[in-house]
């Protein structure tokens, strides 16, 4: 087993940007999307999206399957670059950096955002290495520091007690709910500002889903969470801000109380009616 050694006093975790106050002004939106358009050939997937994501809140991207929620999420950490058939235009500002048109180092841009997929994709390595992977990519090689952070983030997602005696076992040996929490810990370990969650509970049982939802409620104190879901009840439970999308367009956005109680458009009314 990999020995766990608590770092000496004064040693921080990753030794960078750990002060949350450094992550911009709390009143400013953390993400601003301006005139975002995405085409796949002739198919217009996202149509002139304009959006502001408030800091340290859970913003839910709500809408039926195929409405472009996941594409919007993938634009935010430039994973759309992997799909050569997609043509993306517009701007996405993370704090004040236009990441879509950034000429900088894309891996660093991606590290600002932790990604949680529809179903967990543990990397083909041990539980410990799944969490340490991103830390090492940041250039950290101090074994004590890495071990400290692995424990810290496994504790943060409530997984440490369940895995502390089998850190060197393959991550695939965990249950699917545990795997999803491991993926969350892995994402948090690179100290992102934002968590991008793409229907993260869709493959989980109700108990595991509840654990993830409760984690999000805790994590929003320190992170901005953008959650994609088509489940209306999940949006009601978690959202501080709701963006309703339909066929690549934002139809309505605002606080959940207003959107769910007084929907302004027929499309959202219908969605809420069908959802209930």
């Amino acid at each position: 087993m990999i020995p766990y050694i608590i770092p000496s006093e004064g040693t921080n975790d990753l030794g960078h940007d750990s002060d949350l106050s450094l992550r911009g002004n709390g009143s400013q939106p953390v993400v601003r999307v301006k005139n975002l358009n995405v085409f796949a050939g002739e198919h217009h997937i996202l149509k002139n999206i304009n959006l502001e994501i408030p800091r340290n809140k859970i913003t839910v991207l709500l809408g039926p399957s195929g409405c472009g929620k996941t594409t919007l999420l993938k634009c935010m950490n430039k994973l759309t670059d992997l799909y050569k058939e997609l043509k993306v235009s517009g701007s996405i500002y993370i704090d004040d950096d236009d990441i879509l048109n950034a000429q900088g180092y894309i891996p660093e841009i991606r590290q600002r955002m932790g990604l949680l997929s529809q179903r967990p994709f543990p990397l083909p390595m041990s539980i410990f290495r799944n969490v340490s992977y991103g830390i090492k990519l940041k250039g950290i090689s101090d074994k004590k520091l890495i071990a400290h952070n692995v424990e810290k983030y496994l504790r943060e997602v409530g997984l440490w007690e369940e895995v502390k005696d089998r850190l060197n076992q393959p991550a695939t040996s965990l249950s699917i709910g545990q795997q999803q929490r491991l993926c969350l810990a892995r994402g948090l370990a690179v100290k992102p500002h934002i968590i991008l969650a793409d229907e993260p509970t869709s493959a989980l049982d109700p108990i595991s889903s509840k654990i993830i939802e409760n984690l999000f409620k805790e994590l929003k104190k320190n992170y901005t969470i953008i959650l994609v879901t088509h489940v209306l009840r999940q949006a009601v439970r978690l959202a501080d801000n709701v963006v309703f999308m339909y066929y690549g367009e934002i139809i309505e956005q605002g606080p959940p109380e207003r959107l769910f109680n007084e929907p302004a458009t027929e499309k959202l009314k219908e969605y809420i009616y069908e959802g209930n």
Partner: protein
Amino acid sequence: MQKRFITDKITWTWMLFSLILILTMPLIMGVGLYLKSAPIFEHQSLWQLITGSNWSPTRGNFGFWPFISSSLYVTILSFILAVPVCLFAGIYLTQFASGTLNKIMHPVIDILAGLPSVIYGVWGILIIVPFVSKVLAPFFNVTSSGYSLFAGGIVLAIMCIPYMLNMLIEVFNTVPAGMKEASLALGATYWEAVKHVVVRKSFPGIISAYGLGLAKAFGETIAVMMVVGNRIQVSVNPFEAGYPLPALIANNYGEMLSIPMYDAALMFAALLLLVIILIINLIFRYFIYKATQQ
């Protein structure tokens, strides 16, 4: 209703029969070859047969070491040449290449995999043998006719590349895109994601593809036989000729069978080939098991 049950029963029975046929085939082959080669064990011990270097059938000496060593030499040489080419070509095609390049390459690979080995042999005589004789050997300050273990290794490698590459492409394509995206989202570069995730995840499949490729290479006959020189000797010099086991069987079976024990000796060569391929498979199975355990 009765007809449906009968159809169900017939289908099930036929599938089971097909499976049993496949399972018993290597056993039947192994037993048949053993029975036909058994007389030679009364003449020489197994150890003498495998390690002996003296091959003079008319005097009753059947030492198979020159043939075994030639087979191993040519196979290992081809493996060293083919493994990196297949790995990098497979990674490039599945991870980096455009759709257009893939559309061009896949039929080309399929055609190469389907070419009869005699074509590779002829091509080896026309291109590889002169290349070894006039370019490679002089480069290493060696004189060679070109008909050599090296030529055999190169031809065998070229023959095995499309076969192994096809399997590697299948293996790499099974890695979920989400896994690679997860790695990239953590800050990996594209190459890091490929190296740490795609290759690692595919590792058991890579071993399996190479294992099957190695077994195929070891048993390959015609093309190697045409370029390897077919001289009975144990040599460590790759520019000298060799005589692999399959070539021994193909060249001599049906000839000189009036020589006592010659028939049994050739059957023993075939049995040896079967056993070595079985051992190669078992070794690779073990590596696959170890890789999946991790």
